[in-house]
């Protein structure tokens, strides 16, 4: 009992037949092999699976694949422009904004959303913006610095 969906992911168009209960996170990981989107919980708490849907950060474990039909999705694999990292990727690397790396894709995607809405956020605004994404390694210290650094670079 499949449903046909058409989705654009990282600029590529896909048409697949999916189970109605399949989550977008499962679709990305299992059907498209985009395993950079991680799943860290089962209650939409951790945010590791965050992707951009039509430019907005969304936890992909809380979206059915069928709901994403027609949408434009960006995952961590789609952040870089060819060999050129996105400023947020560079900032996470330069500022040591990651340790084990498991939360990092979702954290960076959320940061992209924060900066697209608020290009020069205060520290408090960054922390509020990140509260839906859990990190157990960094204490958020360098993640906040990375978002600040990316904001500075993107402002040019």
């Amino acid at each position, binding site marked *: 009992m499949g449903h046909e969906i058409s989705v654009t992911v990282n600029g590529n168009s896909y048409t697949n037949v999916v189970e109605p209960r399949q989550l977008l996170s499962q679709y990305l990981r299992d059907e498209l092999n985009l395993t950079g989107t991680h799943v860290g919980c*089962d209650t939409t708490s951790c945010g590791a699976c965050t992707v951009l849907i039509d430019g907005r950060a969304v936890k992909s474990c809380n979206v059915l694949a069928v709901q994403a039909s027609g949408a434009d999705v960006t995952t*961590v694999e789609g952040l870089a422009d060819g060999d050129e990292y996105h400023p947020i990727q560079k900032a996470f690397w330069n500022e040591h904004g990651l*340790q*084990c*790396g*498991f939360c990092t894709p979702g954290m960076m995607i959320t940061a992209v959303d924060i900066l697209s809405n608020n290009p020069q956020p205060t520290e408090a605004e960054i*922390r509020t913006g990140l509260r839906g994404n859990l*990190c*157990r390694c960094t204490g958020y*210290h360098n993640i906040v610095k990375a978002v600040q650094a990316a904001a500075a670079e993107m402002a040019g």
Partner: protein
Amino acid sequence: MTTATSIGKAVRRHEDPRLISGNATYIDDVKLLGMAHAAIVRSPHAHANILNVDVTGAANSPGVVAAFTGADVQEQLGSLPAGWVLADMKTPNHPPIAFEKVRYVGDAVAVVVAETPQAAADAASLVEVDYDVLPAVVNAEEAVKDGAPQLHDDAPNNIDFEWEVGGGDYDAAAAEAEVVVKQRMINQRLIPNPIEERGVVADYNRATDQITLWTSTQIPHLVRLLFAAVTGHPEQKVRVIAPEVGGGFGCKLYIYAEEVICGVIAKLLARPVKWISGRQEGYQATTHGRDHIADVEMCGNRDGTITGIKTTVYANLGAYLSTFAPGIPTVLFGFTLGGPYRMPNVACKVYGVLTNTTPVDAYRGAGRPECTYVIERLVDIFSKETGHDPTEVRRKNFIPKFTDGHEVSTGVTYDSGDYEPALDRALEMLDYGAFREEQRKARSEGRLIGVGLSSYVEICGIAPSAVAASLGAGAGLWESSTVRVHPTGKVAVYTGTSPHGQGHQTSFMQITSSELGVPFEDVEVFHGDTDKQQMGTGTFGSRSVAVGGTALYMSLQKVIDKAKRIAAHQMGVPLQQVSYESGTFYVEDIRERNMSWGDVVGEAYSAKNLPPEMEPGLEAVTFFDPQNFTWPFGTHIAVLEIDQDTGESKVLRYIAVDDVGNVVNPMIVDGMVHGGVAQGIGQGLQEQAVYSEDGQLLSGSMMDYALPTAEDVPTFELDRTVTPTDVNPMGVKGAGETGTIACSPAIVNAAVDALSHLGVRHVDMPLTAEKMWRTIRDAKAAQSD
């Protein structure tokens, strides 16, 4: 020659490109041809006899490959071992799938294997289990009482062990003391919560009898050893791979039931089997940490001199012994009860107690946070009782600076220490005098702010094998390295440490590049695969650089030594005249007579003109076993504000001054401190694993267990003092756990300081808003009586 990537430099990490681009391979990213998926059926009861398990419905469900009860595979699965064995300890049987009795919510009772994870989950819900539900006990102090439910026949009163350590004569000291302060302290149960839960993929080759286990672990080599020991599969035919591991914090440091189950079932079915833990499943089936009920006391004199400490601890071990569980509340708790202080009299008694809860084992710090919490809370209570400033009591009682060992009353010898400068620096960063002024002003305005100190010393660099063995360790705790120089001069480093966020590749590349004088990018570091680095112990106990890094350092010296002999032979001079620096071997005093690194390596492999008797090639293996632990130390300070209307606590400032000896990569060390402190703030303010009386895990999901978010922690203020160790040649002590060890008492000390004018003397963690609101209300009511 110092370069931008030398030891001591903040080099950005070699690991990161794969992690920031989505190209890393974590356990759930491992996909094998023909792979089936396992779902584990778990007990919903904390304590019950299993009357019947019926997997017929599951076996007939669409897409199901096989379904097994515990009884079906009890012979193949064996019993999970305790890897740390104390004297007179009980070692109850621990079947990976229960078949007679379940002892905690989450105990496995059946496994279903299907073509997809969804089909496996669907079928697992069709397994029918008849239980005869028994009374349960979840509290360690209740569990030892007569009449409490009994978990294991061979552990009467649920007492797994009684353990003592001490020095001097506490009772005599307390009798002579002018002041004795006593307190009951609960160190609450925590759930470690790496953002990646556990998972296993097992593959079996029937023709070669080879089992390959991919598992999200901190200890691939010990998993190989223990898997072989449990299942009887020949160890040389077991390969364990730790892929990219998404955090561990101690909870991936064991042989787990699912590793054995998946390996055995892959062998039975002769096809790959994958199991990925859900988060709620992991909360039940992955080890917890802490959970101490402690009656503690400290004695001393009115002048602020501390003369002794005594603790009686009920340590909750959960329903079965996890691999290292007996060592955590004992060895890693008791030996440092003197902390950084002259503490002539120490008395420590620990009851290890089995309860109907998820097994408890190491969680970041592992025994040492519990120890530091007891000491540092008591020091503050003692300071208050004797009327001295808590900074002055600490300063007065510090062991004076020492550089060549200091034996403390529990019989262990700290390597090096200089405690006062770290305290001074932390107070300077705070501006302690100004803070007290601000606090007075705040109080006059009705605001509640407080400062809390925590001075600590920890046991790291685990461990000297002979010492650990005498204390119960079931395996040697050395570390191993291999350095293989390729004929092109490039260097492959293999280590038995198994990082899961610590950046060992980067740090070990720095060590290799610095010692060999080869470019940083000419080095690659491999870890986490028992077929590549064949011997190892793993990553835990802040040991990786102190023990594993030293093993690497020693292999590098062996490589240089052999290369020098080749160079001496080629240049026709005695060995003692050859020096090596930054890629060039030269004859001393005649620098123009030299050979490059590449030329010497080429000679090692072309083997056309080597010294007589010398083997070709250039590689070295080292097993390093230190003579002592390392003993990092420092002082942390928390500044807390409590909202008296809501009871909510907020950390206004957090200052950490640590001394971890020499530092390979300060950026990475700072990151370790940040993460540990955030976990300590979590314990202090919000985290707690809660069981109902009948053994249901109430904080059973990420919606119920309060992990710190970015909003819950401040920007941290860090500094270091540097007191190298002589336990290893690089003088490094280890930096993975300082944050959790030091932090939680600083938080509680700050809260109590904020409320001290209301007569509050102690509050147990976590300092939730509700608890603090009630504490403030009750304290004010008591004052107005």
